[in-house]
């Protein structure tokens, strides 16, 4: 098969992964300006409701390759 001609590609947006400092629950949301890894943010934990969370990772989820 001939290689597909590529147009202008969409730029994938990373997800910010946060860990609750109280219960340790990890959740993610789309990246927002000002986020950086190891930053402590005032966001509500979806599980225990605590207001302090730490960003433990910012990365792009990879597309799954079809076998």
């Amino acid at each position: 098969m001939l290689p597909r001609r590529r147009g202008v590609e969409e730029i994938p947006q990373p997800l910010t992964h946060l860990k609750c400092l109280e219960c340790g629950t990890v959740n993610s949301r789309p990246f927002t300006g000002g986020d950086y890894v190891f930053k402590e943010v005032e966001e509500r934990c979806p599980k225990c409701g605590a207001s302090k969370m730490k960003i433990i990772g910012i990365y792009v989820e990879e597309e799954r390759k079809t076998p």
Partner: protein
Amino acid sequence: MLDFLQVSGQQDLISVISSLIWLLFLMIFFIYPSFSQRLQLSYILRDLERRLQRLKVMRDEVRGKTVEVLRKYSGDGVKVDEELDKLLLSFMIAPESMDPYGIVYKLEHIVNTWEDVFEEHVKLICTKADEAWSKTLTNLVEVARGMDYLYRVVRHYYLLGRRTANIYIVLQIQMLMPQIMEIAEAYRRACYAFTQGQPIGDGVGVLAVAKLVEGLEKKTYQVAKDTIVHEFEMDGRRVFVLRAAGPGGAVGRPADGLLKILESERDKVKAVIMIDAALKLEGEETGKVVEGIGAAIGGIGVDKFKIEEISKKMNIPLYAFAIYQSIGEAITPMKKSIAKAADEVVEKVKKLISSKVDEGFSVIVAGIGNTVGIGIS
């Protein structure tokens, strides 16, 4: 008078037509060798023109995005467009290598001066940006500069080839175009990463060492420009973790930091472990962690030279961990497989320290890479 139908001694019209066709083929056979190259040249030029146009669109997009962000942080009365153009066309002259003695230190001096001047210029434009952001913005301008240079080089060869009708000039640039377009696309994506301060693939070395020290009792101090050290105890061994200070985009001066630690620790240091992103070969898995020996550090070679020199002088082994990724992945937002590789490296580094460094001695762990989007743990 010669009868028209008596050409080549033939009498019927079909024979005359076939004779003429043969004559035409014969003419093409003799004319084609000189004509074919022109034909091929025009095809290549058309292909180059199409790609150059795409490159221009990408260059304009990156430039526009850079101007937009710089304007957001610029002071009143600053002509961002003009200032950006100055930065895009700025250059560095490499030292003379006819007599190579001492060239590394000359190169270091020139590169450091250029980097400082570049950063100062960005700070003058973006007076509203804080220290960390002005470093990330400097990286953004460097991306725009790289993209602009790429476009100008391709345009140069296209125009030169067209003006001189030299097929060999255009052929060379046409052969390189797939890789050039890939790099250009990486620059375009990198521009978006830097405008938002997102971690990039190259930062995996820094991320790994940041995870190594996370949550530990440690002493943190600056050891060189944009370079910090975390000092802590691990199973009776003193560990010095060297990295660039984040979350702004910086690579720091790891060699200078390493020299300073060695000056104070001297014979106590029994190993230097370096972690960096490495270019994978096509077909290899992104985020794969491989181990080796040597100074795992890229760039122009100054840091690598200095680290090798001191480690040889003091007879300290250099251990290296490399995390595979492509050139595009290194400068675009970090992928999950690369981020996960940082956890794997942490475990491997811990094992290496306990197996190669005896209790009571010290080890230096250097995380190499750009710290954009990676804070201090």
